[in-house]
């Protein structure tokens, strides 16, 4: 994918390919991020690509992938529009509840201004809409040095006061 921010840097050589739907062809040796139903079908047929991730649409919940988290390198959360905040909670559930350690990637329609909150919820890779936004996003990753609430990597401020 293009315009990807990962580990606090802009990546130019990301190997992952987003498979949009069931009909998209998967070339051999592709690191493929599959829609959940496609993942389940290929898994059933014992035909998964060697490097595999799965993406959730807005209606699919963290629990829907609970059983396959130890088999996927990456879970992508799709933002249908930036105002749809469900994926913030899904990311937290993936990290805090289900203990997922792999990559959680934001895909779809989100704003650079949201990556700070996303990172605090456990999203650690961001497929931005274009290069300019990726650069802006990079600069906005640590907008706030103080956080009142606990998050996936820090305890609440009141525990430090």
């Amino acid at each position, binding site marked *: 994918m293009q315009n990807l921010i990962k580990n606090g840097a802009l990546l130019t050589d990301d190997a992952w390919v987003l498979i949009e739907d069931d009909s998209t062809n998967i070339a051999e040796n592709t690191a493929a991020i599959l829609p959940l139903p496609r993942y389940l079908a290929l898994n059933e047929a014992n035909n998964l690509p060697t490097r595999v991730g799965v993406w959730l649409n807005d209606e699919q*919940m963290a629990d829907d992938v609970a059983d396959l988290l130890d088999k996927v390198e990456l879970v992508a959360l799709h933002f249908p529009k*930036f*105002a*749809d*905040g*469900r994926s*913030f*909670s*899904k990311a*937290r559930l993936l990290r805090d*509840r289900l203990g997922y350690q792999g990559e959680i990637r934001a895909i779809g329609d989100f*704003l650079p*201004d*949201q990556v*700070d*909150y*996303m990172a*605090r*919820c456990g999203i650690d890779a961001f497929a931005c809409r274009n290069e*300019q936004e990726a650069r*802006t996003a990079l600069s*906005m990753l640590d*907008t*706030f*040095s*103080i*956080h*009142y*609430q*606990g*998050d996936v990597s820090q*305890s*609440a*401020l*009141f*525990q430090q*006061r």
Partner: protein
Amino acid sequence: MYVYDSFDQKVVDERVAQFREQTERYLDGQLADDEFLPLRLQNGLYIQRHAPMLRIAVPYGLLSSKQLRKLAELTETYDKGYGHFTTRQNVQFNWPALEDVPDILAGLADVQMHAIQTSGNCIRNTTTDQFAGVLRDEIADPRPWCELIRQWSTLHPEFAFLPRKFKIAVNGSTNSDRAAVRFHDIGLELVRNDAGELGFKVFVGGGLGRTPLVGQEVRDFLPGIHLLSYLEAILRVYNLLGRRDNKYKARIKILVKALGVEAFRDKVEAEWAHLKDGPATLTEAEIARVAEHFVDPAYENLADADAILAQQKADHPGFAQWLDRNVYLHKKPGYAAVTLSIKKLGYAPGDCTADQMRSVAHLADQFSFGELRVSHEQNLILADVRQDQLLELWEAAKLVGFATANIGTLTDVICCPGGDYCALANAKSIPIAESIQAQFDDLDYLYDLGDLDLNISGCMNACGHHHIGNIGILGVDKKGEEFYQVSLGGDSGQNARVGKILGPSFNAEDIPAVVDKVIQVYTENRQPEEAFVDTVERLGLDPFKERVYAKSH
């Protein structure tokens, strides 16, 4: 009141820097209108009919005189020299220029204020009783809990893009509910359990707007230390399951109604089972740290000044009326809480000029430890006034025009900005308030009518809380013309009730006469000491309908 430490200050300072950068990017064309929208909204900035509108947070209605003076200065520098106190205890500037907003926010940060999350689909300013901390019948002071909620909800990373706005209110009084907790997304009522421990009764799913609903109890006792983890559980369930396909069905009340309160509660409890005792669990040390900021001011040891007041009342009949309507009992002997009426005929309820702000700030310094509160009735409160200084305060307040002795009466109208200012309005609301105030200008008659809330909203969004006015007036649009629907019997308090619509709507000119007829039915039928809302409850709507809609002969 709560005083920022270096952490709190840093949060608001960094927020100002962030918004300055966002505004620059927008003016530069790098951010589209619809993308800037949620970002500016989360900083309180709307684009209204005439200009942007900036809503500034007044956390749970508490202000220092220094902050009020700063508001006066900012509105003179960047606006038209007045502000507007809202029904949610906040303050609005109606005409700032977009380019100036970062500087306004920086000015606010200088006095420990901000506009964070005063609009947008996020957790809004938490509200409470304007007499919090000085009430005789209080279980505990709600303000430390409001501040804990303020800090927890400020820039919460998970809940900034909810399906819709989210409002929390806290009440600590046993006998009254001035915070209207049953009409909030979450209402918290301070209670003690049998073991004497402090906690909350939790209501969810109340609200006004298009679908007015009374909140339902989801928990009868939540220990204080679990407050934040429980709020997280509710918010998470809502964030994941609340409707996002239709903004009129997106509030949590619709989710609670659709699932039924039992199923909703089960989901919250299931989520909370994971969060309970987790990292969001408050410590006694943190509760104590915040509560420290709300300890009593340096009260003198006084006795109630009954004899002096009796004499002063005899000498000054106007003062007697003012004591009766505008002065409230205080927990500390020798003190009283005073409501300054800032509503004036010909001005929007809640409007306050920079000069008036400075006058109130001065009165607060002189009489009430330099602090004041904003009430949801859009008045200002001095909460800690010595009883033996009440006469002096009354005289001073009269000079600046804040001593109208009408608090809680029919002319102490709650009213939204309406069609004169608001882009969403169906009809004007301020002229309606004025016509009623002009019709009922006889104070003795008003006193005789007693407690009576009249609330006016210019559209279904119900910013004027018309559903819970004893008399509610709603602006409606009929084929491009402004009409008004009248409802009776709403109650925001412990007997939470949504008013019932009287019948077909009226022209603006007819409203004073309609209200007059409603009042006549009340005065003819009331029992001794019976308040208006109780008479409506006892009689039902029929006698009111008959009078109001009778054909004239």
